[in-house]
């Protein structure tokens, strides 16, 4: 035993910071933003500046998105003249659609960032993990079941939510091997569930009457067509609420990148946290799917690009993805509206056409790096 005779300082006493015994920074133990380590971690300043800049991007995207469309309107006339057709188109068609694009894109991108943290895999997102497919199936079943009975306004999103949550839980359960979440298994199970939900949707499609077929394609391909302001408000509220829940767990999500056990050893109640994040992301995906169908790849591309640009800290990545997703989907929907005007592309096709090749690129790139999972 050592002959150590230590001070009997109470356990709660903060241990004074001593000058480091060695190393280049030995002379300076107090940290000031802007010194040599300034760029190495997230500061309040970096958070504020980044989110401010992204908010400006969202504003500009929104203005561009409402200014252009399949029909030319004058924004000036829409604002000045109360009874102009410009205002009618602006208020009843374009504005709700652009706002919905923002709300859905924000939700999907924030969900992508959170799920990627949760499974420690940058290839995860709502669509890949089968959540969107489950939600779409729930929406379609409700749509067909309650059609003509009224009450569809509530049944469809509720069914989408329930099915998305159920799908999440099933995928998650099947991906846990010996108490550990296996990222590769999770991706495979998610892909399989996506295929199963797709097949189930086709099954429903083939047994319902022709009247529903257009609606079903709408869910499968994703569209932001003709939302009501009530729908916009609901999705926006759920997206913001979901983001708030995720932000409250932002540091835990950072710690989770060290592994479940290490996160637990740093004070995270991993199982409880994971359940909470799964519920929150399911609510957000279900809200998005229930109004816009399956819009894939938003949750993949946006967080990935922002992580490369601004770092992996989820205190910044989550709100940045929220804003970036809003801007991205508003612009993608603009492309969907004007590219083949007067006909319209499904916005889900636009995002998939951007996202598919991007996904392959990432898969190849990650396969070679230390992120190979």
């Amino acid at each position, binding site marked *: *035993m050592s002959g150590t005779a*230590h001070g009997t*300082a109470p356990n709660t006493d903060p241990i004074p910071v001593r000058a*480091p015994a060695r190393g280049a920074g030995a002379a300076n133990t107090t940290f000031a933003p802007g010194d040599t380590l300034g*760029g190495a*971690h997230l500061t309040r300043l970096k958070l504020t500046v980044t989110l401010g800049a992204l908010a400006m991007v969202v504003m500009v995207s929104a203005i561009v998105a409402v200014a252009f469309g399949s029909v030319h309107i004058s924004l000036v006339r829409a604002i000045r003249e109360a009874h102009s057709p410009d205002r009618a188109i602006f208020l009843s068609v374009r504005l709700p659609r652009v706002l919905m694009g923002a709300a859905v894109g924000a939700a999907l991108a924030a969900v992508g960032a959170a799920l990627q943290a949760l499974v420690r895999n940058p290839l995860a997102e709502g669509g890949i993990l089968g959540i969107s497919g489950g939600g779409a199936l729930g929406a379609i079943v409700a749509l067909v079941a309650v059609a003509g009975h009224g009450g569809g306004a509530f049944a469809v999103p509720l069914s989408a939510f329930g099915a998305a949550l159920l799908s999440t839980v099933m995928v998650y359960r099947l991906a846990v091997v010996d108490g550990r979440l296996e990222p590769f298994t999770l991706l495979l199970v998610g892909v399989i569930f996506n295929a199963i939900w797709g097949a189930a949707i086709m099954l429903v499609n083939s047994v319902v009457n022709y009247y529903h077929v257009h609606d079903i394609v709408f869910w499968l391909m994703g569209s932001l067509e003709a939302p009501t302001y009530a729908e916009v408000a609901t999705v926006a509220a759920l997206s913001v609420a979901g983001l708030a829940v995720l932000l409250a767990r932002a540091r835990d999500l950072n710690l989770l990148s060290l592994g479940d056990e290490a996160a637990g050893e740093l*004070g995270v109640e991993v199982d409880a946290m994971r359940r909470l994040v799964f519920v929150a992301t399911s609510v957000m995906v279900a809200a998005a799917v229930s109004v816009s169908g399956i819009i894939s790849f938003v949750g993949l591309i946006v967080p990935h690009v922002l992580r490369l640009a601004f770092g992996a800290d989820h205190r910044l990545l989550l709100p940045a993805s929220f804003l970036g997703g809003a801007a991205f989907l508003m612009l993608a929907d603009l492309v969907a509206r004007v590219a083949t005007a007067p006909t319209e592309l499904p916005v889900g096709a636009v995002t998939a056409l951007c996202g598919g090749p991007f996904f392959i690129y990432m898969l190849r790139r990650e396969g070679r790096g230390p992120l190979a999972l």
Partner: protein
Amino acid sequence: MATAQHAPHATGHSAAANPSALRASQVVGGYGERAVLHGVSLEVNAGEMLAIVGPNGAGKSTLLRILGGSLRAWRGEVEVLGAPLGSLDRRALARRVAVVGQDNQVAFSFTVLEVVLMGRAPHLGSYHFESPADLALARAALARFDLTDLAARPIQELSGGERKRVFLARALAQEPRIALLDEPTAHLDLRHVADIFARFGELRAERGLAVVATLHDLNAAALYADRVLLLKDGVARGCGAPHEVLTEEKLREVYETEVYVGHNPATGALVVLPGAPRETRFKS
């Protein structure tokens, strides 16, 4: 090896000055239905270092998991600074006990400084920003493990040995009273092994940090630990000062191979070497 010269209020009363930091009695535990530990007891005082040694599969890492709260013991008791382990929630435990496991992977490209700052998490709210004091602690931890120049580098660009040191620095930034280290010297070269134990020696002397480390390297255990716990098949086969536990007879029995135990002629330190019986030795 730890000396009292840095202690601020040396009392000279060893019972009061060396309170028990971590105590385990008759711990039984394992995975699923399979018991790995069959009643292991240990005690580590503030400022002490205990090395857990033994062959592969002896239960060293399992014991560390139980002590760190990641695995629940089936039976037996663990006390952390006098409080039963079960009475502490994970955050409270993380403010007292830091764990550095063998797996030092990080899923996303956090910087070295960000990983070390994660050690502050149990002291901070979920969306709180690190205060200048937190950053100073992280910087001091980086400097202590010679990582200052790597602070802004993505953790994934580092070598295995550098990454291990980052995780040790993270544990230090956690300001624990007890550090549980699973093979802290794996992936490290000779100089860094000596450095790491020197740093932990300083920490033990400065702030009474108690260290429990699993070690494959019996020479390191002999050189740096105050006490050694020799495990085999989940049972303690010896616990005490290195010269009491690391004997040829015990090691031969536990490792089932011939062992030579002697002394470094230059320093007098205990030396353990593999030694085949005379008749099967290579002839040269």
